[in-house]
């Protein structure tokens, strides 16, 4: 999932305190699962803002909504409709950065503010703990490294084994951070494939990642004929 954390209330308030009618829009997918921006968090943020405005005798009406996903037109259109129908002046999105972008693109003239900090692609490794596991680099090499990603999980994204800073399974940046390469070595030892690490992985072509510019995937079998001529899915 995409993992996010809620922004401090004071920061969110700073975005919207000069409007009279705002909408807090949650997302029912990733940010719900990572407890940052689902229905419950919408209620929480809205209530906290109301109390905060009331205390300062500011008249701001705070509306609430939560759609299934903020990254698909059919759901975002509902928010768009509500904004128009109810005269909403500003929206705080508790969806990930994708949600904020997509809402902003859809709402045209209504400002959209981020209510969460979008962190990474990760998994729940224990209750309340999310761990980054994928960097979305666009050219997966997990078959070479025992299914554990050196790009996302090594602090230096090293491709050919651990640097000299690995200590007791931890990374040099912080004893709380696992050394990604220690995990890879441990895993490949168990798989009996450690010898395959002998092969030198050449410099990567980072153009498949964000370094190649903003990316787009187009599935011709699904997309209408007019959709993106460039960046076609392989």
């Amino acid at each position: 999932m995409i993992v996010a954390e809620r922004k401090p209330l004071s920061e969110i308030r700073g975005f919207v305190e000069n409007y009279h009618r705002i909408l807090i829009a949650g997302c029912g997918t990733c940010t719900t699962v990572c407890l940052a921006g689902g229905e419950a968090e919408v209620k929480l943020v809205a209530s906290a803002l109301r109390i905060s405005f009331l205390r300062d005798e500011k008249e701001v009406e705070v509306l609430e909504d939560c759609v299934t996903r903020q990254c698909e037109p059919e759901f975002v259109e509902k928010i768009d409709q509500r904004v128009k129908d109810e005269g909403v002046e500003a929206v705080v999105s508790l969806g990930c950065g994708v949600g904020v972008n997509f809402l902003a693109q859809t709402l045209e003239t209504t400002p959209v503010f981020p209510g969460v900090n979008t962190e990474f692609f990760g998994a729940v490794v224990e209750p309340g703990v999310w761990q980054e596991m994928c960097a979305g680099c666009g050219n997966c090499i997990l078959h070479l490294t025992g299914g554990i990603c050196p790009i996302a999980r090594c602090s230096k994204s090293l491709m050919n084994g651990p640097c000299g800073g690995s200590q007791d399974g931890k990374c040099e940046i912080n004893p709380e951070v696992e050394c990604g390469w220690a995990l890879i070595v441990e895993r490949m030892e168990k798989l009996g494939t450690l010898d395959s690490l002998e092969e030198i992985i050449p410099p990567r072509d980072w153009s498949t990642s964000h370094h190649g510019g903003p990316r787009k995937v187009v599935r011709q079998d699904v997309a209408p004929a007019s959709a993106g001529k460039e960046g076609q899915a392989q």
Partner: protein
Amino acid sequence: MKSGSNLERVLEAGHFAVTVEIGPPMDCNPAEVVKKARLLKGLADAYNITDNQTAVVRMSSIAAAVLIAREGLEPVMQMSCRDRNRLAIQADILGACALGVKNCLCIAGDHQSFGAAGRLKGHPGAKNVYDVDSIQLVAILKGMRDDGVQQGGDPIEVRPPLFVGAAWTPLGDPVAIRPLRLKKKVAAGADFIQTQGVYDVPRFKEQMEAICDMGLHERTCILAGIIVPRSLGMLKYMNSSVAGVSIPESLIKRMAKARKSAGDNKKQASRNQAQEGINISVELIEQVREIPGVKGVHIQAIEWERRVPEILEKAGLLPRPMVPGKEKENGSEGEDHGG
């Protein structure tokens, strides 16, 4: 000869090589570099110029390398993957070679969060690069030199004649992978290797046995790292906090005894520890020299370069050999070495 560098010639001639580290200053004062160069001239076959070591901004390794070369010392320019992408690295390599640099040590570089392990502010909020890793960097330099191509495939008319080095942490975790890491560095084209500081000689020897069994000692020149300890505190700090450095209890006890012997006299305690640190360094040099496959030592006396002459003298490594270059190799800069 790949580069015709003094370091390459000394190693090729079968001498036990000595390199010494010189850390550039955190300002633009060339006199600092020149001072260190004059202090160390003639003591080593080449001198490593660190590249923003411990993730702290310092005078660039290229500039400091050229400054010491002007003083007649041969630099080993360090090049870290943290701060430059492949374009910047290759441009800097071409520039450095144009200025006469003949040795380059390829390293990943400490993470930017390191900031001299908290002793300085550093730039923990910096964006790092790591476009390529140190093994890929070795291969890139080898390709530039031997095949005359940039990493992207464009041709290089005048190829950079570099003696290419890499670092190795023999006792770094996970230890099982370390010989394989070295094998990859050698396969990528590392002509020489400088190791992390060695204190635990028996364990280092075990790793070297594995390396010799793999035949790697014949394909590259391994220089054992010697970090000169100044005090009990430094030994303890390195033991607990520097990855890949493990210090036997016996050495810690020796240093503790040296400190204790001065009683309450703090200045004397400091002098005693410094002397014991030098004794330990000399012994370590003598011990690693006996280990099959070790072709030299790399001395790191961090901001304590003035004690290096004494260490090398006591270890019997002076004077340094003079190995003239062959005429056709047209070696010049930085080779009127040893004065």
